[in-house]
């Protein structure tokens, strides 16, 4: 499990930040992104994948979350 931070930019796109490794990247796909359910498996621009426990969408961004690494890049 890793602590990550998810941001939302002005255009509404999500970006991912892993402070421990100072890894900043765009989130390309997110499994669930609706008003009821948010999270699931996320894919990053660099090819890595993480899993966020599906939940109701956070009221405010950025938000720090716990995520599980599914597939690391490199």
């Amino acid at each position, binding site marked *: 499990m890793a602590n990550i931070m998810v941001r939302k930019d002005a255009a509404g796109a999500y970006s991912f930040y892993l402070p421990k490794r100072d890894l900043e990247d765009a989130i390309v796909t997110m499994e669930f992104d609706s008003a009821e359910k948010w999270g699931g498996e996320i894919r990053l621009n660099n090819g890595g994948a993480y899993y966020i426990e599906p939940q109701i969408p956070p009221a405010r961004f*950025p938000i720090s979350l716990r995520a599980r690494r599914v597939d690391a890049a490199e």
Partner: protein
Amino acid sequence: MSTLTREETEALIQEVLEVYPEKARKDREKHLAVNDQSVEQSKKCITSNRKSLPGVMTIRGCAYAGSKGVVWGPIKDMIHISHGPVGCGQYSRAGRRNYYVGTTGVDTFGTMNFTSDFQEKDIVFGGDKKLAKLINEIELLFPLHKGISVQSECPIGLIGDDIEAVSKKAAKEIDKPIVPVRCEGFRGVSQSLGHHIANDAIRDWVLDARDGAPFESTPYDVSIIGDYNIGGDAWASRILIEEMGLRVVSQWSGDGTLAEMEKTPKVKLNLLHCYRSMNYISRHMEEKYGIPWLEYNFFGPTKIAESLRAIAAHFDDKIKEGAERVIAKYQPMMEAVIAKYKPRLQGKTVMLYVGGLRPRHVIGAYEDLGMEVIGTGYEFAHGDDYDRTIKEMGNATLLYDDVTGFELEEFVKKLKPDLVGSGIKEKYVFQKMGIPLRQMHSWDYSGPYHGYDGFAIFARDMDMAISNPCWSKLVPPWKKLPETETAAELKKVA
């Protein structure tokens, strides 16, 4: 020599790499790249933030340098103890020229060195008692200090001293904040981790001190983050931001105080200049307090105008008008500067090798003077810095990460730039090669270079370096004369 094609630049990299043993060559190859603006992600072309190779001359610093030297050091009304042997503190003391106002030794302590001066017995028996004693002495001798930070040097982590416990206990006794910072030099691969550790220490020990305290805020409160006031930089930035109608609540950390840092969570927008060293705390404030942050660039009139407009876009029309007014006010002054220096500097080429933000931020300022940056690189950047750099640099220019002394020398020999912008360690190497160098860490004891006022000084300094008559005098006359004489004689005979 900026006309190198992509193939030629690639060939140059290969040529320079040839001397390394195979393993080292493979590793170094990943850190050198030819810029391609079409690449969206830097990691496809350049690797960064990796351990330097043993045996090469790297120009990097350590985590202690990143914390004490960069982030904490400039906070003027706190005392920063270099906890450990005397050298780290003494040799890094006052070298960065973070200007401040105040009476040194009374209410400000920026250029002083406080150290626990570890001896063998402290390494063997631990230095906790010494630290506690030191804090009491500080309180007695410098009662006007606002707080203390304990900057760990390598031995503290090695022997496992509990500086947190000492700090907490002493903080209660003297009733002032004491911040233990675990920035031992051996952590990480460069000073970059020191910035991160320092940011985290501010987050954990300082930032929430005034949460809930009353504060008279205005809708125009901003803070300047990541400006270390080198040669007065932050002042040159601050006047522009104030002139456009904003209120600067805090400066991080050049000429900054502890109280300013504690008040930062009350601002409406964080203006981030040095992304590398302070993005961590900006992200934290965005999450915890909902304060957006904005990267800006105050080098050269083109970028300043862009940045002022971007800052104003976060506020109402009054500020937007203010930004236009400021730009219009300084435009004629900047035109005069450019008219004076551009003819002398037009077409000159520059190679940069610095840290933090400058390898990409100053490109605009050079371009305003008609100069071209043909190579740039960072000491301790991460991938996201190169993401930002690729767009600023021209195609087929050279990018080098954590460049070794040998590589930089070879690149400069081959590319023959008219000016190199780097630090003190490179200065005399290149000047003896006959290439002008300006120190872009400390502005070569000049400055400020930020803001409109700074650009005038920047332009003058670059002209001073390049147009200095000494560069044509590098070959002594007794070595020059026979050649020309024989040439003349030969002509006569012919």
